[in-house]
């Protein structure tokens, strides 16, 4: 009792004092790593773009697939994971009155595990012994140490997930009957997905390690692909949910408005968490071994994610319109002029949302079997995820940095850096329009993804791709300028910008918002429903793959 009292007293003090130095250090370290990864990954991306346009031949000691593996791992594993954890830990600390000392320790252990794991994974990549791309599909086999690194990264993520759960449970015990602050509600959803989503990949990696060491001879290829995508797809939705958290909670505050309905927001989070993991099958639409009927049923699972997404689109535009009108916007569309377009904290996520409309439409195309046959494994797919993760998610993250980094560094966003951010957003948008736009188009013309420059013996078809590949390279050059500006902005805000207080912008509820029912808080129930859906989604193919398993494949080094 006494310790509880003391703790809540400390928490109260901390709340008045604003941020906690020690918690901020955690987020700062995570964001630091994230943006170093952006810088390195971006440079590698440029090399790829130039290579595919036939403008750059990589030196003999640097293999295209090695570069592509590093680009994928740095940008979709390191950048996103470190950003997500740094961002949500800052928000947990802010909205729950500080992290518990135990949780702080867990976050640091998680950080070290991830860094050590990353070093384990990177060394074989640098030695060209793990050019298996970030999806590491068997039967391609990397050095076993690459997979051991992945295990450590997963363990690090679990540490952070459990840290978050402990902090949330602690808050709820001290604030009985209250709804979790909305930001922490999003964080809970994300960490639930991170934990359950990384279980399948952990199982996969434990299948791979003995095989990569040569202790077992063969591996079940289809099973490992399926386990990979149960994770990979969830990871995608973790980024998405992270971006969505900023759209619902932060952006309304930045534009001087209020949040959309609290209950509906929480329902969107719950739906995205519960329905997520079985969605992984849409990455296997042309894989063998899954019957047409099962694939057809899974289309519904995939498209059901469109429902909370449409709700989100509606919610955002309703918030924008309401806020714009309150500030005097007139007429059918006059409100949009009232939005703070010159504020990078709004502009970047706004463009991200617009990009998501395009990305979502592309996603629906790819979920359709017949259309998937046209675009599968072409550059279209590369265009698709540079629009979704490379624009929608990343631009939201960029927009977040302009207040989050000063907040955790006790500094302020200067008008100069804001202007830099606006220019950066503009460059990124144009760069991606060039790059992702041409990628989509050249994909329709048949250009394959994950293939270094080749003319296929001067084939006319392949030569026809070249103009678009050059556009891709031009986009890549713009993007690398964007990367440099963004990385500069982050490090400037972290170490150089003028000292001062920056607010953690969390929007208030709407004045007449309805009461939020407490059942939204019962995460145990949501998790059980989620497990049921996972069981139903996976049981048919997995039983089929294991009972009717082919002999399996020995490890193969294709590079």
């Amino acid at each position, binding site marked *: 009792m006494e310790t509880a009292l003391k703790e809540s007293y400390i928490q109260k003090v901390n709340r008045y004092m604003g941020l906690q130095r020690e918690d901020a250090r955690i987020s700062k370290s995570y964001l630091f790593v994230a943006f170093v990864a952006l810088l390195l990954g971006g440079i590698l991306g440029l090399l790829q773009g130039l290579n595919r346009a036939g403008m750059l031949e990589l030196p003999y000691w640097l293999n295209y697939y090695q570069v592509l593996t590093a680009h994928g791992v740095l940008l979709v594993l390191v950048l996103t994971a470190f950003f997500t954890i740094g961002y949500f830990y800052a928000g947990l600390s802010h909205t729950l009155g500080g992290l518990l000392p135990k949780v702080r320790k867990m976050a640091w252990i998680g950080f070290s595990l991830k860094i050590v794991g990353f070093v384990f994974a990177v060394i074989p990549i640098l030695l060209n012994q793990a050019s298996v791309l970030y999806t590491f599909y068997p039967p391609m086999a990397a050095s076993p140490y690459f997979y051991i690194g992945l295990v450590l990264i997963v363990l690090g993520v679990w540490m952070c997930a459990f840290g978050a759960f402990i902090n949330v449970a602690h808050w*709820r015990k001290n604030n009985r009957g209250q709804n979790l602050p909305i930001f922490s509600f999003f964080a809970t959803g994300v960490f639930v997905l991170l934990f359950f989503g990384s279980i399948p990949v952990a199982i996969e990696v434990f299948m791979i390690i003995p095989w990569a060491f040569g202790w077992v001879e063969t591996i079940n290829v289809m099973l490992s692909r399926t386990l990979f995508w149960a994770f990979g797809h969830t990871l995608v939705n973790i980024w998405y949910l992270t971006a969505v958290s900023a759209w619902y909670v932060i952006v309304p505050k930045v534009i001087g408005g209020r949040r959309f309905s609290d209950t509906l927001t929480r329902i969107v989070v719950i739906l995205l968490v519960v329905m997520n993991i079985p969605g992984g099958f849409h990455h296997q639409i042309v894989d063998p071994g899954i019957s047409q009927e099962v694939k*057809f049923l899974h289309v519904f699972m995939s498209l059901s994610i469109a429902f909370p997404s449409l709700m989100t689109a509606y919610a955002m535009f309703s918030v924008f319109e309401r806020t714009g009108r309150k500030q005097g916007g007139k007429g059918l569309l006059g409100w949009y002029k009232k939005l703070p377009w010159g504020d990078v904290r709004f502009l970047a996520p706004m463009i991200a949302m617009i990009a998501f409309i395009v990305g979502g439409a592309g996603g629906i195309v790819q979920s359709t079997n017949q259309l998937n046959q046209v675009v599968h494994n072409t550059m279209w797919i590369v265009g698709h995820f540079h629009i979704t993760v490379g624009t929608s998610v990343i631009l939201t993250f960029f927009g977040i940095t302009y207040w989050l980094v000063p907040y955790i560094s006790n500094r302020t966003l200067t008008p100069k850096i804001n202007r830099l951010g606006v220019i950066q957003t503009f460059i990124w948008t144009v760069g991606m329009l060039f790059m992702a736009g041409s990628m989509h188009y050249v994909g329709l013309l048949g250009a394959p993804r994950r293939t270094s420059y080749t003319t296929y013996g001067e084939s006319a078809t392949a030569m026809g791709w070249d103009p678009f590949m050059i556009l891709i390279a031009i986009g890549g050059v713009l993007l690398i300028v964007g990367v440099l500006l963004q990385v500069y902005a982050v490090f400037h805000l972290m170490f150089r910008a003028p000292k001062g207080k920056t607010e953690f912008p969390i929007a208030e509820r709407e004045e007449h918002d309805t009461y939020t029912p407490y059942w939204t808080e019962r995460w145990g129930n949501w998790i059980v429903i989620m497990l*049921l859906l996972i*069981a139903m989604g996976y049981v048919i193919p997995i039983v089929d793959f294991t009972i009717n398993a082919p002999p399996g494949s020995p490890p193969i080094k294709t590079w």
Partner: protein
Amino acid sequence: MKQSLIGLLLFIVLSLPPVVTLLESIMIIHMHMQMPLLVIAGALFGRYFQIHFPHFWEKWNGNGIPGITLFVIIAVYWSIPRTMDDALTYPSVEVFKFMSLFLLAGVPLYDSWKRLNVTLKNSVFILFTILFLSMGWLYLNVTQQLCNNYLLIDQITLGWGSAAMGVCIAIYLLYTTFTDPSQYE
């Protein structure tokens, strides 16, 4: 009213011939998706009966036990392999399956659930945990084909699926037993 309309609509969609063919082509989808969806449709539609015949329910289902008993009987009946086979073979049995799951399982479930006390609710969960786990055990261990209409692999899949559902309900029961909501709420 909207709720009962959604239930009716769901029932109609589930009765469309292509939907029926698709869902019944896979054994586990037949048992663990089509049938529960019919029950859910019935439960949504149950609102209609509650509004229009409140006295009937008050009189016959005051403590929820008759309704839940009916639900359990119907649910258990349709988990017998033979009955599934018959539904695929005889159109009349198929019609009975649709109507019974919709009207005799879904509708009473909706009316009864709120009337049951915690012990009874948990008993229902325990019953289904045992049912699903034993079905899982049965289907995983029987080496003969139990249905004319489905292969052995379908049966094994159904076994794993049922076992997994049993485990999920067990997790739920453990979760409600070992967490104390009064600490949080």
